[in-house]
Protein backbone atom coordinates (compact mmCIF):
# COMPACT_ATOMS: atom_id res chain seq x y z
CA UNK A 1 0.00 0.00 0.00
CA UNK A 2 2.15 2.74 -1.32
CA UNK A 3 -0.24 5.62 -0.64
CA UNK A 4 -0.22 5.15 3.08
CA UNK A 5 2.42 7.10 4.89
CA UNK A 6 2.70 7.96 8.52
CA UNK A 7 2.96 11.45 9.83
CA UNK A 8 4.26 12.83 13.09
CA UNK A 9 1.84 13.66 15.84
CA UNK A 10 0.64 17.28 15.91
CA UNK A 11 0.50 18.73 19.39
CA UNK A 12 -3.14 19.71 19.20
CA UNK A 13 -4.10 16.06 19.48
CA UNK A 14 -3.23 16.25 23.16
CA UNK A 15 -6.21 18.46 23.84
CA UNK A 16 -8.75 15.90 22.65
CA UNK A 17 -11.16 14.47 25.19
CA UNK A 18 -10.58 11.08 26.71
CA UNK A 19 -12.99 9.10 24.55
CA UNK A 20 -11.77 10.46 21.32
CA UNK A 21 -8.18 10.21 22.43
CA UNK A 22 -8.59 6.52 23.20
CA UNK A 23 -10.12 6.07 19.79
CA UNK A 24 -7.28 8.03 18.35
CA UNK A 25 -4.72 5.72 19.89
CA UNK A 26 -6.64 2.79 18.45
CA UNK A 27 -6.51 4.34 14.99
CA UNK A 28 -2.84 5.01 15.37
CA UNK A 29 -2.24 1.41 16.36
CA UNK A 30 -4.12 0.22 13.31
CA UNK A 31 -2.04 2.50 11.16
CA UNK A 32 1.10 1.16 12.79
CA UNK A 33 -0.04 -2.30 11.76
CA UNK A 34 -0.26 -1.02 8.22
CA UNK A 35 -4.05 -0.91 7.98
CA UNK A 36 -5.67 1.80 5.93
CA UNK A 37 -8.18 4.29 7.34
CA UNK A 38 -11.16 5.73 5.47
CA UNK A 39 -12.82 8.91 6.71
CA UNK A 40 -16.58 9.24 6.19
CA UNK A 41 -19.09 12.04 6.64
CA UNK A 42 -22.48 10.52 6.36
CA UNK A 43 -24.72 7.63 7.29
CA UNK A 44 -25.23 6.83 3.61
CA UNK A 45 -21.64 5.62 3.28
CA UNK A 46 -21.64 1.80 2.93
CA UNK A 47 -18.86 1.16 5.43
CA UNK A 48 -19.06 -2.61 4.86
CA UNK A 49 -17.00 -2.06 1.70
CA UNK A 50 -14.08 -0.73 3.73
CA UNK A 51 -14.40 -3.35 6.47
CA UNK A 52 -14.45 -6.08 3.83
CA UNK A 53 -11.15 -4.72 2.56
CA UNK A 54 -9.62 -4.83 6.01
CA UNK A 55 -9.75 -1.05 6.25
CA UNK A 56 -11.02 1.00 9.17
CA UNK A 57 -13.85 3.46 8.52
CA UNK A 58 -14.11 6.44 10.86
CA UNK A 59 -16.69 9.21 11.04
CA UNK A 60 -15.25 12.67 10.46
CA UNK A 61 -18.39 14.74 11.06
CA UNK A 62 -17.07 17.43 13.36
CA UNK A 63 -19.16 18.57 16.29
CA UNK A 64 -17.27 21.50 17.77
CA UNK A 65 -16.87 25.10 16.74
CA UNK A 66 -13.12 25.06 17.30
CA UNK A 67 -12.26 25.28 13.61
CA UNK A 68 -15.27 27.21 12.31
CA UNK A 69 -13.42 30.52 12.10
CA UNK A 70 -10.58 28.85 10.23
CA UNK A 71 -13.09 27.34 7.79
CA UNK A 72 -14.75 30.71 7.30
CA UNK A 73 -11.58 31.95 5.67
CA UNK A 74 -12.62 29.86 2.70
CA UNK A 75 -16.28 28.95 3.17
CA UNK A 76 -19.22 31.36 3.47
CA UNK A 77 -20.31 32.24 6.99
CA UNK A 78 -23.90 31.41 6.29
CA UNK A 79 -23.27 27.69 5.93
CA UNK A 80 -24.22 24.76 8.12
CA UNK A 81 -21.77 24.48 11.07
CA UNK A 82 -21.33 20.75 10.48
CA UNK A 83 -19.88 21.44 7.06
CA UNK A 84 -17.75 24.37 8.20
CA UNK A 85 -16.39 22.59 11.22
CA UNK A 86 -15.70 19.33 9.36
CA UNK A 87 -13.86 21.17 6.64
CA UNK A 88 -11.96 23.20 9.22
CA UNK A 89 -10.79 20.13 11.10
CA UNK A 90 -9.46 18.50 7.96
CA UNK A 91 -7.59 21.49 6.59
CA UNK A 92 -6.05 22.46 9.93
CA UNK A 93 -4.96 18.88 10.67
CA UNK A 94 -6.65 19.20 14.05
CA UNK A 95 -8.73 16.05 13.78
CA UNK A 96 -6.55 12.97 14.30
CA UNK A 97 -9.02 10.82 12.42
CA UNK A 98 -8.99 13.03 9.36
CA UNK A 99 -5.25 13.31 9.71
CA UNK A 100 -4.82 9.55 9.52
CA UNK A 101 -7.42 9.02 6.78
CA UNK A 102 -5.87 7.71 3.57
CA UNK A 103 -9.11 8.30 1.76
CA UNK A 104 -12.17 10.43 2.46
CA UNK A 105 -15.51 9.30 1.10
CA UNK A 106 -18.43 11.70 0.75
CA UNK A 107 -21.80 11.69 -0.98
CA UNK A 108 -23.75 14.28 -2.94
CA UNK A 109 -26.16 14.77 -0.04
CA UNK A 110 -26.80 18.48 0.45
CA UNK A 111 -25.36 21.21 -1.76
CA UNK A 112 -23.08 22.62 0.90
CA UNK A 113 -21.44 19.29 1.56
CA UNK A 114 -20.92 18.31 -2.03
CA UNK A 115 -19.30 21.62 -2.91
CA UNK A 116 -17.17 21.40 0.24
CA UNK A 117 -15.81 18.05 -0.97
CA UNK A 118 -14.48 19.76 -4.08
CA UNK A 119 -12.42 22.03 -1.85
CA UNK A 120 -11.41 19.19 0.43
CA UNK A 121 -9.98 17.32 -2.54
CA UNK A 122 -7.20 19.89 -2.61
CA UNK A 123 -5.98 18.59 0.72
CA UNK A 124 -6.86 14.89 0.78
CA UNK A 125 -7.74 12.01 -1.52
CA UNK A 126 -11.51 12.31 -1.81
CA UNK A 127 -14.03 10.00 -3.44
CA UNK A 128 -17.56 11.36 -3.83
CA UNK A 129 -20.47 8.99 -4.34
CA UNK A 130 -23.38 10.24 -6.41
CA UNK A 131 -26.35 9.80 -4.10
CA UNK A 132 -29.79 9.85 -5.74
CA UNK A 133 -32.11 12.41 -4.15
CA UNK A 134 -35.12 10.17 -4.22
CA UNK A 135 -35.66 6.56 -3.27
CA UNK A 136 -38.45 5.03 -5.25
CA UNK A 137 -37.64 5.68 -8.90
CA UNK A 138 -36.09 2.67 -10.61
CA UNK A 139 -33.13 4.72 -11.69
CA UNK A 140 -32.34 5.58 -8.05
CA UNK A 141 -31.64 2.02 -7.06
CA UNK A 142 -29.69 1.35 -10.25
CA UNK A 143 -27.57 4.42 -9.77
CA UNK A 144 -26.87 3.74 -6.11
CA UNK A 145 -25.92 0.15 -6.85
CA UNK A 146 -23.47 1.22 -9.52
CA UNK A 147 -22.07 3.86 -7.17
CA UNK A 148 -21.42 1.24 -4.51
CA UNK A 149 -19.58 -0.84 -7.12
CA UNK A 150 -17.63 2.21 -8.27
CA UNK A 151 -16.64 2.85 -4.64
CA UNK A 152 -15.53 -0.77 -4.29
CA UNK A 153 -13.36 -0.46 -7.39
CA UNK A 154 -11.86 2.80 -6.24
CA UNK A 155 -11.00 1.33 -2.86
CA UNK A 156 -9.50 -1.78 -4.44
CA UNK A 157 -7.35 0.30 -6.72
CA UNK A 158 -6.20 2.84 -4.18
CA UNK A 159 -5.31 0.34 -1.47
CA UNK A 160 -4.20 -2.33 -3.92
CA UNK A 161 -6.42 -5.08 -2.63
CA UNK A 162 -9.39 -7.06 -3.77
CA UNK A 163 -12.71 -7.28 -2.00
CA UNK A 164 -14.66 -10.52 -2.34
CA UNK A 165 -18.40 -10.96 -1.98
CA UNK A 166 -17.74 -13.28 0.92
CA UNK A 167 -15.78 -10.60 2.71
CA UNK A 168 -18.63 -8.11 2.17
CA UNK A 169 -21.13 -10.61 3.51
CA UNK A 170 -19.01 -11.15 6.59
CA UNK A 171 -18.71 -7.40 7.10
CA UNK A 172 -22.49 -7.07 6.79
CA UNK A 173 -22.96 -9.79 9.41
CA UNK A 174 -20.61 -8.08 11.81
CA UNK A 175 -22.08 -4.63 11.33
CA UNK A 176 -25.54 -6.12 11.81
CA UNK A 177 -24.47 -7.59 15.13
CA UNK A 178 -23.32 -4.13 16.22
CA UNK A 179 -26.46 -2.44 14.89
CA UNK A 180 -28.63 -4.93 16.72
CA UNK A 181 -26.77 -4.43 20.00
CA UNK A 182 -26.90 -0.65 19.75
CA UNK A 183 -30.60 -0.88 19.05
CA UNK A 184 -31.14 -3.25 21.98
CA UNK A 185 -29.29 -0.75 24.08
CA UNK A 186 -31.21 2.37 23.18
CA UNK A 187 -34.50 0.48 23.28
CA UNK A 188 -33.99 0.05 27.00
CA UNK A 189 -35.04 3.69 27.23
CA UNK A 190 -38.53 2.59 26.23
CA UNK A 191 -38.81 1.44 29.84
CA UNK A 192 -40.39 3.75 32.36
CA UNK A 193 -38.28 5.18 33.81
CA UNK A 194 -35.46 4.71 31.31
CA UNK A 195 -32.29 3.27 32.92
CA UNK A 196 -30.14 6.04 31.40
CA UNK A 197 -30.43 9.72 30.64
CA UNK A 198 -30.60 10.93 27.07
CA UNK A 199 -27.16 12.44 27.42
CA UNK A 200 -25.75 9.07 28.49
CA UNK A 201 -27.49 7.38 25.58
CA UNK A 202 -26.18 9.95 23.13
CA UNK A 203 -22.63 9.59 24.41
CA UNK A 204 -22.77 5.83 24.06
CA UNK A 205 -24.17 6.02 20.54
CA UNK A 206 -21.75 8.75 19.54
CA UNK A 207 -18.75 7.17 21.21
CA UNK A 208 -19.43 3.76 19.67
CA UNK A 209 -18.18 5.04 16.33
CA UNK A 210 -14.74 5.42 17.82
CA UNK A 211 -14.40 1.80 18.86
CA UNK A 212 -12.68 -0.06 16.09
CA UNK A 213 -12.27 -3.60 17.31
CA UNK A 214 -15.41 -5.57 16.52
CA UNK A 215 -14.99 -8.26 19.18
CA UNK A 216 -14.22 -5.76 21.95
CA UNK A 217 -17.05 -3.51 20.88
CA UNK A 218 -19.54 -6.38 20.96
CA UNK A 219 -18.33 -7.45 24.40
CA UNK A 220 -18.51 -3.93 25.79
CA UNK A 221 -21.98 -3.35 24.41
CA UNK A 222 -23.23 -6.63 25.88
CA UNK A 223 -21.78 -5.71 29.23
CA UNK A 224 -23.34 -2.27 29.07
CA UNK A 225 -26.73 -3.71 28.20
CA UNK A 226 -26.64 -6.14 31.08
CA UNK A 227 -25.61 -3.37 33.48
CA UNK A 228 -28.43 -1.16 32.27
CA UNK A 229 -30.92 -3.99 32.62
CA UNK A 230 -29.82 -4.47 36.19
CA UNK A 231 -30.18 -0.76 36.82
CA UNK A 232 -33.70 -0.93 35.46
CA UNK A 233 -34.63 -3.97 37.53
CA UNK A 234 -33.38 -2.54 40.78
CA UNK A 235 -34.85 0.86 40.02
CA UNK A 236 -31.50 2.51 40.64
CA UNK A 237 -31.58 4.60 37.50
CA UNK A 238 -30.75 8.29 37.21
CA UNK A 239 -34.20 9.25 35.90
CA UNK A 240 -37.32 9.78 38.03
CA UNK A 241 -40.44 8.12 36.69
CA UNK A 242 -42.27 11.44 36.57
CA UNK A 243 -39.99 12.95 33.95
CA UNK A 244 -41.57 13.87 30.61
CA UNK A 245 -40.34 11.71 27.75
CA UNK A 246 -38.87 13.40 24.68
CA UNK A 247 -37.89 12.05 21.27
CA UNK A 248 -35.30 14.11 19.38
CA UNK A 249 -35.26 14.38 15.60
CA UNK A 250 -33.38 16.49 13.04
CA UNK A 251 -29.75 17.05 12.06
CA UNK A 252 -26.95 14.83 13.42
CA UNK A 253 -26.17 15.34 17.12
CA UNK A 254 -23.21 15.04 19.44
CA UNK A 255 -20.41 17.19 20.82
CA UNK A 256 -21.43 20.84 20.91
CA UNK A 257 -25.09 20.08 20.28
CA UNK A 258 -25.27 18.08 23.48
CA UNK A 259 -26.42 21.47 24.78
CA UNK A 260 -29.88 20.75 23.37
CA UNK A 261 -30.14 17.51 25.35
CA UNK A 262 -28.79 19.26 28.44
CA UNK A 263 -31.38 22.01 28.13
CA UNK A 264 -34.19 19.45 27.90
CA UNK A 265 -32.90 17.26 30.69
CA UNK A 266 -32.23 20.25 32.93
CA UNK A 267 -35.94 21.05 32.79
CA UNK A 268 -37.41 17.90 34.31
CA UNK A 269 -37.57 15.75 31.20
CA UNK A 270 -35.61 12.90 29.70
CA UNK A 271 -34.65 12.23 26.10
CA UNK A 272 -35.68 8.64 25.44
CA UNK A 273 -34.81 8.28 21.76
CA UNK A 274 -32.82 9.94 19.00
CA UNK A 275 -34.29 9.67 15.53
CA UNK A 276 -31.21 11.48 14.15
CA UNK A 277 -28.25 9.95 12.34
CA UNK A 278 -26.51 9.53 15.68
CA UNK A 279 -29.28 7.16 16.73
CA UNK A 280 -32.19 5.22 15.31
CA UNK A 281 -31.76 6.42 11.72
CA UNK A 282 -28.61 4.32 11.69
CA UNK A 283 -29.49 1.34 13.82
CA UNK A 284 -33.21 0.78 13.40
CA UNK A 285 -32.93 -1.59 10.43
CA UNK A 286 -30.53 -4.37 9.50
CA UNK A 287 -28.92 -5.13 6.15
CA UNK A 288 -30.58 -8.15 4.55
CA UNK A 289 -28.19 -11.10 4.96
CA UNK A 290 -30.19 -13.44 2.73
CA UNK A 291 -29.61 -11.72 -0.62
CA UNK A 292 -26.59 -10.89 -2.75
CA UNK A 293 -24.48 -8.47 -0.66
CA UNK A 294 -24.24 -5.51 -3.07
CA UNK A 295 -28.01 -5.53 -3.56
CA UNK A 296 -28.48 -5.76 0.18
CA UNK A 297 -26.25 -2.72 0.75
CA UNK A 298 -28.05 -0.83 -2.01
CA UNK A 299 -31.45 -1.45 -0.42
CA UNK A 300 -30.35 -0.72 3.11
CA UNK A 301 -28.43 2.49 2.55
CA UNK A 302 -30.76 4.05 0.01
CA UNK A 303 -33.68 3.65 2.40
CA UNK A 304 -32.16 5.92 5.08
CA UNK A 305 -34.72 8.61 5.88
CA UNK A 306 -32.66 11.78 5.60
CA UNK A 307 -34.05 15.17 4.58
CA UNK A 308 -31.79 15.24 1.53
CA UNK A 309 -34.30 12.79 0.00
CA UNK A 310 -37.43 14.08 -1.66
CA UNK A 311 -39.92 12.91 -0.73
CA UNK A 312 -38.64 11.51 2.55
CA UNK A 313 -41.33 9.15 3.88
CA UNK A 314 -38.97 6.94 5.89
CA UNK A 315 -38.09 9.67 8.38
CA UNK A 316 -41.75 10.17 9.19
CA UNK A 317 -42.45 6.46 9.48
CA UNK A 318 -39.55 5.99 11.88
CA UNK A 319 -40.38 9.09 13.90
CA UNK A 320 -43.97 8.02 14.45
CA UNK A 321 -42.93 4.52 15.40
CA UNK A 322 -40.39 5.84 17.92
CA UNK A 323 -42.99 8.15 19.47
CA UNK A 324 -45.26 5.19 20.16
CA UNK A 325 -42.58 2.74 21.18
CA UNK A 326 -40.92 5.18 23.58
CA UNK A 327 -44.22 6.64 24.81
CA UNK A 328 -43.12 10.14 23.93
CA UNK A 329 -44.78 13.14 25.56
CA UNK A 330 -43.27 15.41 22.94
CA UNK A 331 -40.82 15.73 20.07
CA UNK A 332 -37.99 18.24 19.86
CA UNK A 333 -36.36 18.85 16.50
CA UNK A 334 -32.88 20.27 16.23
CA UNK A 335 -31.90 21.87 12.95
CA UNK A 336 -28.49 23.36 12.37
CA UNK A 337 -28.28 26.96 11.21
CA UNK A 338 -28.44 27.21 7.43
CA UNK A 339 -29.30 23.54 6.90
CA UNK A 340 -31.79 23.76 4.09
CA UNK A 341 -32.96 20.14 3.87
CA UNK A 342 -33.91 19.86 7.54
CA UNK A 343 -34.90 23.51 7.88
CA UNK A 344 -37.46 23.24 5.11
CA UNK A 345 -38.67 19.78 6.08
CA UNK A 346 -39.37 21.08 9.58
CA UNK A 347 -42.73 22.49 8.44
CA UNK A 348 -43.81 19.02 7.29
CA UNK A 349 -42.67 17.46 10.55
CA UNK A 350 -44.68 20.02 12.51
CA UNK A 351 -47.79 19.30 10.49
CA UNK A 352 -47.28 15.53 10.65
CA UNK A 353 -47.01 15.56 14.45
CA UNK A 354 -49.81 18.10 14.87
CA UNK A 355 -52.15 15.81 12.99
CA UNK A 356 -51.25 13.04 15.38
CA UNK A 357 -51.68 15.15 18.49
CA UNK A 358 -47.98 14.96 19.41
CA UNK A 359 -46.49 18.13 20.87
CA UNK A 360 -43.58 19.49 18.89
CA UNK A 361 -40.92 22.15 19.16
CA UNK A 362 -38.20 22.93 16.66
CA UNK A 363 -34.99 24.72 17.63
CA UNK A 364 -32.32 26.03 15.33
CA UNK A 365 -28.81 26.16 16.67
CA UNK A 366 -25.12 25.96 15.77
CA UNK A 367 -21.95 24.79 17.47
CA UNK A 368 -21.37 27.88 19.60
CA UNK A 369 -22.57 28.10 23.16
CA UNK A 370 -24.01 31.60 22.81
CA UNK A 371 -27.60 30.39 22.77
CA UNK A 372 -27.52 27.97 25.71
CA UNK A 373 -29.67 30.29 27.85
CA UNK A 374 -32.17 30.67 25.05
CA UNK A 375 -32.28 26.91 24.59
CA UNK A 376 -32.85 26.39 28.30
CA UNK A 377 -35.78 28.79 28.31
CA UNK A 378 -37.33 27.25 25.25
CA UNK A 379 -36.88 23.71 26.50
CA UNK A 380 -38.28 24.54 29.94
CA UNK A 381 -41.29 26.32 28.43
CA UNK A 382 -41.91 23.39 26.11
CA UNK A 383 -41.76 20.91 29.01
CA UNK A 384 -44.19 23.15 30.94
CA UNK A 385 -46.71 22.76 28.11
CA UNK A 386 -46.53 18.97 28.38
CA UNK A 387 -48.01 18.72 31.86
Amino acid at each position, binding site marked *: MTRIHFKALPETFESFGEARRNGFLAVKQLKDQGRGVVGTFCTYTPTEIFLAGGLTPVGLCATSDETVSEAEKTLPRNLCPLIKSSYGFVVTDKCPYAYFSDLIVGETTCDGKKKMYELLARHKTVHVMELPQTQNLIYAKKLWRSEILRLKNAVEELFELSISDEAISLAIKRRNVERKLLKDLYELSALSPPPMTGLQQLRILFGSQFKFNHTDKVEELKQLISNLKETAQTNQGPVPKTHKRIVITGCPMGGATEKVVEAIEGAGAVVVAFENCTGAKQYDRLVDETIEPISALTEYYLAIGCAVMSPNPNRFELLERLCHQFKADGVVEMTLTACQPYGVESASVREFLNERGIKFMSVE*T*DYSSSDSE*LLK*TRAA*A*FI*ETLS
Partner: protein
Amino acid sequence: MNAIGLDCGSSWCKGAWLDKNLNARELISRPAGWNLKKAIEEVLETLRELTGPGAIVAATGYGRGLVAGAKLRPTEIGCHAKGAEFLASGTRSVIDIGGQDTKAIGALNGKVLTFQMNDRCAAGTGRFLEKSLERLSLNLEDIDLITGVSPASVASLCAVFAESEIMSLLFQGVSRESIALGVVEALAEKAASLLSKIKPLSPVALTGGLCQCRTLAKTLSKASGVQVINLERGRHAGAIGAALLALSA
Protein backbone atom coordinates in the same frame (compact mmCIF):
# COMPACT_ATOMS: atom_id res chain seq x y z
CA MET B 1 -49.33 35.94 52.25
CA ASN B 2 -47.50 38.33 49.95
CA ALA B 3 -45.65 37.35 46.82
CA ILE B 4 -42.90 39.05 44.88
CA GLY B 5 -42.43 38.24 41.23
CA LEU B 6 -39.24 39.24 39.46
CA ASP B 7 -38.77 39.20 35.70
CA CYS B 8 -35.06 39.62 35.06
CA GLY B 9 -34.79 40.41 31.38
CA SER B 10 -31.85 41.45 29.28
CA SER B 11 -32.83 45.15 29.21
CA TRP B 12 -34.94 45.63 32.32
CA CYS B 13 -35.51 43.99 35.65
CA LYS B 14 -39.19 44.15 36.51
CA GLY B 15 -40.79 43.43 39.88
CA ALA B 16 -44.36 42.93 41.08
CA TRP B 17 -45.87 42.73 44.54
CA LEU B 18 -49.09 40.77 44.84
CA ASP B 19 -50.98 40.49 48.11
CA LYS B 20 -53.03 37.50 49.22
CA ASN B 21 -56.17 38.91 47.60
CA LEU B 22 -54.35 38.96 44.30
CA ASN B 23 -54.09 42.72 44.12
CA ALA B 24 -51.08 44.00 42.23
CA ARG B 25 -49.93 46.46 44.89
CA GLU B 26 -46.72 47.67 43.32
CA LEU B 27 -45.03 47.35 39.92
CA ILE B 28 -41.50 48.63 39.49
CA SER B 29 -38.61 48.28 37.10
CA ARG B 30 -34.91 49.11 36.79
CA PRO B 31 -32.66 49.08 33.74
CA ALA B 32 -30.62 45.88 33.83
CA GLY B 33 -27.42 47.57 32.72
CA TRP B 34 -24.33 45.44 32.77
CA ASN B 35 -24.65 44.54 36.41
CA LEU B 36 -27.76 42.39 36.36
CA LYS B 37 -27.25 41.28 39.90
CA LYS B 38 -27.30 44.81 41.24
CA ALA B 39 -30.47 45.70 39.37
CA ILE B 40 -32.12 42.55 40.68
CA GLU B 41 -31.10 43.28 44.26
CA GLU B 42 -32.43 46.83 44.02
CA VAL B 43 -35.81 45.72 42.77
CA LEU B 44 -36.02 42.94 45.32
CA GLU B 45 -35.04 45.18 48.19
CA THR B 46 -37.49 47.91 47.23
CA LEU B 47 -40.32 45.42 47.10
CA ARG B 48 -39.26 43.65 50.31
CA GLU B 49 -39.43 46.97 52.16
CA LEU B 50 -43.02 47.29 51.03
CA THR B 51 -44.15 43.74 51.67
CA GLY B 52 -42.31 43.29 54.92
CA PRO B 53 -40.64 39.97 55.75
CA GLY B 54 -42.10 36.62 54.73
CA ALA B 55 -43.04 37.32 51.13
CA ILE B 56 -42.46 34.40 48.78
CA VAL B 57 -40.26 35.18 45.80
CA ALA B 58 -40.47 33.73 42.30
CA ALA B 59 -38.07 34.73 39.56
CA THR B 60 -38.30 34.43 35.80
CA GLY B 61 -36.35 35.74 32.82
CA TYR B 62 -32.77 35.11 31.75
CA GLY B 63 -31.40 36.30 35.07
CA ARG B 64 -33.67 34.13 37.19
CA GLY B 65 -30.73 32.06 38.36
CA LEU B 66 -29.21 35.17 39.95
CA VAL B 67 -32.09 35.77 42.35
CA ALA B 68 -31.06 34.56 45.77
CA GLY B 69 -33.84 32.93 47.76
CA ALA B 70 -36.29 32.50 44.91
CA LYS B 71 -38.69 29.71 45.74
CA LEU B 72 -39.39 28.90 42.13
CA ARG B 73 -37.92 29.85 38.77
CA PRO B 74 -40.54 29.34 36.05
CA THR B 75 -39.90 30.33 32.44
CA GLU B 76 -40.98 33.75 31.23
CA ILE B 77 -43.21 32.10 28.67
CA GLY B 78 -45.38 30.52 31.34
CA CYS B 79 -45.27 33.75 33.36
CA HIS B 80 -46.37 35.95 30.49
CA ALA B 81 -49.32 33.65 29.83
CA LYS B 82 -50.33 33.80 33.49
CA GLY B 83 -49.74 37.53 33.76
CA ALA B 84 -51.70 38.29 30.60
CA GLU B 85 -54.64 36.26 31.89
CA PHE B 86 -54.48 38.26 35.12
CA LEU B 87 -54.39 41.60 33.30
CA ALA B 88 -57.00 40.68 30.71
CA SER B 89 -59.00 37.66 31.71
CA GLY B 90 -59.87 35.29 28.89
CA THR B 91 -56.70 36.05 26.90
CA ARG B 92 -55.98 33.20 24.48
CA SER B 93 -52.96 34.63 22.65
CA VAL B 94 -50.03 36.74 23.77
CA ILE B 95 -47.25 38.42 21.86
CA ASP B 96 -44.36 39.39 24.11
CA ILE B 97 -41.71 41.51 22.48
CA GLY B 98 -38.73 41.45 24.79
CA GLY B 99 -35.23 42.83 24.74
CA GLN B 100 -33.54 39.83 23.20
CA ASP B 101 -36.40 37.70 22.02
CA THR B 102 -39.96 37.73 20.86
CA LYS B 103 -42.47 35.10 21.89
CA ALA B 104 -45.90 34.23 20.61
CA ILE B 105 -47.90 32.26 23.16
CA GLY B 106 -51.17 30.39 22.88
CA ALA B 107 -52.82 29.89 26.27
CA LEU B 108 -55.98 28.82 28.04
CA ASN B 109 -56.77 30.06 31.56
CA GLY B 110 -53.22 31.28 31.89
CA LYS B 111 -51.66 27.96 30.97
CA VAL B 112 -49.37 27.71 27.94
CA LEU B 113 -50.69 25.44 25.19
CA THR B 114 -48.18 26.33 22.52
CA PHE B 115 -45.50 28.91 21.86
CA GLN B 116 -43.07 30.16 19.23
CA MET B 117 -39.87 32.05 19.83
CA ASN B 118 -37.26 33.61 17.59
CA ASP B 119 -34.01 31.69 17.20
CA ARG B 120 -30.67 33.04 18.32
CA CYS B 121 -30.32 36.48 16.78
CA ALA B 122 -31.96 39.71 17.81
CA ALA B 123 -33.76 40.16 14.48
CA GLY B 124 -37.20 41.56 15.13
CA THR B 125 -36.85 41.92 18.89
CA GLY B 126 -37.15 44.91 21.15
CA ARG B 127 -33.42 45.45 20.82
CA PHE B 128 -33.84 45.98 17.10
CA LEU B 129 -36.32 48.81 17.65
CA GLU B 130 -34.30 50.27 20.50
CA LYS B 131 -31.11 50.39 18.42
CA SER B 132 -32.91 51.94 15.50
CA LEU B 133 -34.60 54.61 17.61
CA GLU B 134 -31.28 55.40 19.23
CA ARG B 135 -29.82 56.03 15.80
CA LEU B 136 -32.71 58.35 15.00
CA SER B 137 -32.58 60.11 18.38
CA LEU B 138 -36.20 59.27 19.01
CA ASN B 139 -37.90 57.85 22.10
CA LEU B 140 -40.37 55.03 22.11
CA GLU B 141 -43.11 57.46 23.19
CA ASP B 142 -42.44 59.65 20.16
CA ILE B 143 -43.66 56.98 17.78
CA ASP B 144 -47.31 57.33 18.75
CA LEU B 145 -47.07 61.08 18.13
CA ILE B 146 -46.01 60.73 14.51
CA THR B 147 -48.73 61.78 12.09
CA GLY B 148 -49.06 62.34 8.39
CA VAL B 149 -46.06 60.33 7.16
CA SER B 150 -46.04 56.96 5.52
CA PRO B 151 -43.54 54.32 6.64
CA ALA B 152 -40.30 53.89 4.72
CA SER B 153 -39.54 50.38 3.61
CA VAL B 154 -36.94 48.80 5.90
CA ALA B 155 -35.96 45.32 4.75
CA SER B 156 -33.32 44.36 7.26
CA LEU B 157 -34.48 42.89 10.54
CA CYS B 158 -31.03 42.50 11.96
CA ALA B 159 -30.20 44.94 14.72
CA VAL B 160 -26.74 45.40 13.27
CA PHE B 161 -27.57 45.66 9.58
CA ALA B 162 -30.61 47.85 10.19
CA GLU B 163 -28.27 50.61 11.24
CA SER B 164 -26.58 50.77 7.85
CA GLU B 165 -29.93 50.60 6.15
CA ILE B 166 -31.18 53.48 8.27
CA MET B 167 -28.10 55.47 7.34
CA SER B 168 -28.67 54.92 3.66
CA LEU B 169 -32.31 56.00 4.01
CA LEU B 170 -31.19 59.15 5.83
CA PHE B 171 -28.70 59.84 3.04
CA GLN B 172 -31.57 59.58 0.59
CA GLY B 173 -33.35 62.30 2.54
CA VAL B 174 -36.10 60.13 4.01
CA SER B 175 -37.48 61.67 7.22
CA ARG B 176 -36.63 60.02 10.51
CA GLU B 177 -40.34 59.75 11.35
CA SER B 178 -40.93 57.77 8.20
CA ILE B 179 -37.94 55.54 8.95
CA ALA B 180 -39.15 54.96 12.52
CA LEU B 181 -42.53 53.83 11.23
CA GLY B 182 -40.75 51.59 8.74
CA VAL B 183 -38.80 49.97 11.54
CA VAL B 184 -42.01 49.37 13.49
CA GLU B 185 -43.52 47.82 10.39
CA ALA B 186 -40.53 45.50 9.89
CA LEU B 187 -40.75 44.47 13.54
CA ALA B 188 -44.47 43.83 13.20
CA GLU B 189 -43.93 41.65 10.12
CA LYS B 190 -41.51 39.46 12.01
CA ALA B 191 -43.73 39.22 15.08
CA ALA B 192 -46.74 38.47 12.86
CA SER B 193 -44.96 35.52 11.30
CA LEU B 194 -44.27 34.09 14.76
CA LEU B 195 -47.90 34.77 15.71
CA SER B 196 -49.26 33.00 12.65
CA LYS B 197 -47.48 29.82 13.71
CA ILE B 198 -49.52 29.56 16.91
CA LYS B 199 -52.86 30.21 15.12
CA PRO B 200 -53.72 33.23 17.29
CA LEU B 201 -57.19 33.92 18.69
CA SER B 202 -58.33 37.53 18.79
CA PRO B 203 -57.69 39.70 20.72
CA VAL B 204 -53.97 39.11 21.08
CA ALA B 205 -52.45 40.77 24.15
CA LEU B 206 -49.24 42.73 23.57
CA THR B 207 -46.91 42.36 26.56
CA GLY B 208 -43.29 43.23 27.24
CA GLY B 209 -41.49 46.54 27.07
CA LEU B 210 -43.36 47.78 24.00
CA CYS B 211 -46.80 47.02 25.44
CA GLN B 212 -47.94 50.64 25.41
CA CYS B 213 -46.99 51.44 21.85
CA ARG B 214 -50.32 51.97 20.04
CA THR B 215 -48.66 52.23 16.65
CA LEU B 216 -47.07 48.83 17.13
CA ALA B 217 -50.37 47.21 18.16
CA LYS B 218 -52.08 48.74 15.15
CA THR B 219 -49.35 47.73 12.71
CA LEU B 220 -49.21 44.26 14.19
CA SER B 221 -52.98 43.87 13.85
CA LYS B 222 -52.70 44.77 10.20
CA ALA B 223 -49.75 42.47 9.56
CA SER B 224 -51.23 39.47 11.35
CA GLY B 225 -54.89 39.85 10.48
CA VAL B 226 -55.96 39.48 14.13
CA GLN B 227 -56.67 42.28 16.54
CA VAL B 228 -53.71 43.04 18.80
CA ILE B 229 -54.44 45.10 21.91
CA ASN B 230 -52.16 47.05 24.23
CA LEU B 231 -52.02 45.68 27.74
CA GLU B 232 -51.58 48.74 29.92
CA ARG B 233 -49.42 46.98 32.51
CA GLY B 234 -48.12 44.44 30.02
CA ARG B 235 -44.46 45.14 30.60
CA HIS B 236 -44.98 43.63 34.05
CA ALA B 237 -46.94 40.61 32.81
CA GLY B 238 -43.96 38.32 33.40
CA ALA B 239 -43.32 39.59 36.93
CA ILE B 240 -47.03 39.40 37.79
CA GLY B 241 -47.19 35.87 36.40
CA ALA B 242 -44.21 34.85 38.52
CA ALA B 243 -45.85 36.30 41.63
CA LEU B 244 -49.07 34.46 40.85
CA LEU B 245 -47.18 31.21 40.51
CA ALA B 246 -45.46 31.91 43.82
CA LEU B 247 -48.84 32.37 45.51
CA SER B 248 -50.22 29.12 44.15
CA ALA B 249 -47.07 27.11 44.85
